[in-house]
């Protein structure tokens, strides 16, 4: 059994915000959570009037290590190509913040942490959290940095849900919002896939009702299967076919259940490398938060009502081959924003790379982001970048 990914959490690099018992985080479920640690990274420099901050919201299995070698995996940051001097998220011009989400396992408080009431890991006694709770935690961080208004909140997938939540709940604090490859609610299909992942974890005997740390075990097989199933939804059929086709690992079929096909081997690798950096209970809690997300529900079931009176500039982006969060979901957001005459741009980027396209180097995607950010920066009175 490999070492628990949570063992080395305290030694992870980066910043920490500690919320003590005197300032608990009030959660949607009614629980007041304390203490809470928020682990975050920053890139670039906050300007004197604190007007150049961009909050990056990471996706389900992402974390705060956006643009640097990951301390656990040793791999490049998940948006490394996007962040840096002269890049789309230009560290010469903007101050970038990314925090590990509430319920996560990269330093922010989650189910693997100690429950102060019992002295044992929270496990399933950790309160069920929502996208709103994640954003509430981020708000505390933004407050602690003395930032009144974020220049921009940006994120893809679950990160996009957080972007929408930010804009709807704290419109005065978000000048521009870029929700990418996401939707205003988890669809039945989204919930169905999430449930398959959770059931894979729960069915693993090593899960022990969520108390695996007490048994010195980890439900690695279940978590790996969850990741494998989810990973398929992040790709597209053409992308899978182009990458693997029906290519075999060896020269011939083995007439057994080893990974005969390259795609099987690839998925197994995705599963086994994932369990080294992710906590199974975090996976349960975070996918649940996505399931519960429904922006219209708090506004009489009418999405447009959520956006009424909003001044935030929106840039909605979807990808043609994304079937997990298809363009029609983005279009529903655009229609709602139009119906309240909000300031919105909407681009569907042509890509055959599926949902994961938002993590990849898609020139059209990056050009759209740069143009939108430059336009927003001008309206915010921030210096424009060098002409690209």
């Amino acid at each position, binding site marked *: 059994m490999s070492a628990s990914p949570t063992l080395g959490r305290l030694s992870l690099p980066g910043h920490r915000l500690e919320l003590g018992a005197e300032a608990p985080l009030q959660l949607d479920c009614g629980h007041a959570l304390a203490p809470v640690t928020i682990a975050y990274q920053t890139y670039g420099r906050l300007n004197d009037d604190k007007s150049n901050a961009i909050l990056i919201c990471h996706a389900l299995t992402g974390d705060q290590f956006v643009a640097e070698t990951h301390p656990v995996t040793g791999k490049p940051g998940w948006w490394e190509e996007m962040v840096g001097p002269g890049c789309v998220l230009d560290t010469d011009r903007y101050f970038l913040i990314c925090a590990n989400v509430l319920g996560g396992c990269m330093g922010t408080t989650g189910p693997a942490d100690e429950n102060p009431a019992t002295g044992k890991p929270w496990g399933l006694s950790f309160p069920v959290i929502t996208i709103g709770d994640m954003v509430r935690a981020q708000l505390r961080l933004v407050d602690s940095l003395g930032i009144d208004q974020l220049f921009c909140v940006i994120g893809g997938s679950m990160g996009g849900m957080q972007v929408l939540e930010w804009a709807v709940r704290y419109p005065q604090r978000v000048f521009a919002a870029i929700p990418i490859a996401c939707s205003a609610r988890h669809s039945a299909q989204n919930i169905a896939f999430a449930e398959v992942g959770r059931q894979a974890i729960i069915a693993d005997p090593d899960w022990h009702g969520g108390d695996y740390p007490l048994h010195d075990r980890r439900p690695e097989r279940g978590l790996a299967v969850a990741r494998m199933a989810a990973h398929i939804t992040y790709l597209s059929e053409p992308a899978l076919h182009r990458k693997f086709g029906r290519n075999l690992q060896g020269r011939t079929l083995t007439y057994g259940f080893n990974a005969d096909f390259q795609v099987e081997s690839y998925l197994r690798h995705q599963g086994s490398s994932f369990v080294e950096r992710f906590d199974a209970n975090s996976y349960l809690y975070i996918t649940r938060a996505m399931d519960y997300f429904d922006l219209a529900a708090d506004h009489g079931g009418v999405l447009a009502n959520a956006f009424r009176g909003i001044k935030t500039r929106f840039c909605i982006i979807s990808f043609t081959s994304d079937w997990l969060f298809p363009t029609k979901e983005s279009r529903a957001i655009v229609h709602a924003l139009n119906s309240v005459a909000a300031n919105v741009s*909407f681009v569907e980027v042509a890509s055959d790379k599926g949902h994961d396209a938002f993590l990849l180097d898609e020139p059209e995607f990056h050009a759209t982001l740069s143009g939108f950010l430059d336009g927003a920066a001008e309206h915010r009175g921030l210096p424009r970048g060098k002409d690209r």
Partner: protein
Amino acid sequence: MSRPPSPLMDDGTSRPTIRVDLQLVADMVEPGCRVLDIGCGEGVLLDYLYRFKQVDGRGMELSMAGVRAAVAHGLSVVQGDADTDLKDYPTGAFDYVILSQTLQATRAPKTVLQHMLRIGRRAIVSFPNFGHWRVRKSLLFQGRMPVTETLTFQWFDTPNIHLCTIRDFTDLCQSLDISVERAVSLNARGMIRFDAGGALANLLGEQAVFLLRRD
């Protein structure tokens, strides 16, 4: 703060050149107002209005290539279809709703026009005039569908499915209780302009620009 020269327009002059009918449209817009440009293409007019008339502009464009170019230039543009997506916009949300050289390509021009004057206090519509003498000549003498400087497509691949004359358009406005505040007709290069209400406009104007108001 100064902006670098726009890649969408000629630079180096204080009054960059835009298409002549767009210039005419732009001249009808009051500075500092809210504008929705339907069928905005790459956003040339929106960009002009933003720079020189300090307009708070939004665009809608059918082609994704156009939308991408406009958004990448910092304009607020959504991909959408005038025939299906105008119903989403609230009543009275804009000062001007602009439709340049697009009305004749919509499936339901009358409905589009009604939406425009619901969404906007005023509407500006430009369209090719099918009553121009060259069009008439092509039909009368050659017996063929016209292909001209403003109507550049062959009949089999034209997007223009609802062509009309200036007189037809004026009649439609009348039947919908829409007031014509200004109407200008011009030739393709914009060199010759007439009051489109005049008797000869329907014969001599290759295109027309109407400034409309709800009654």
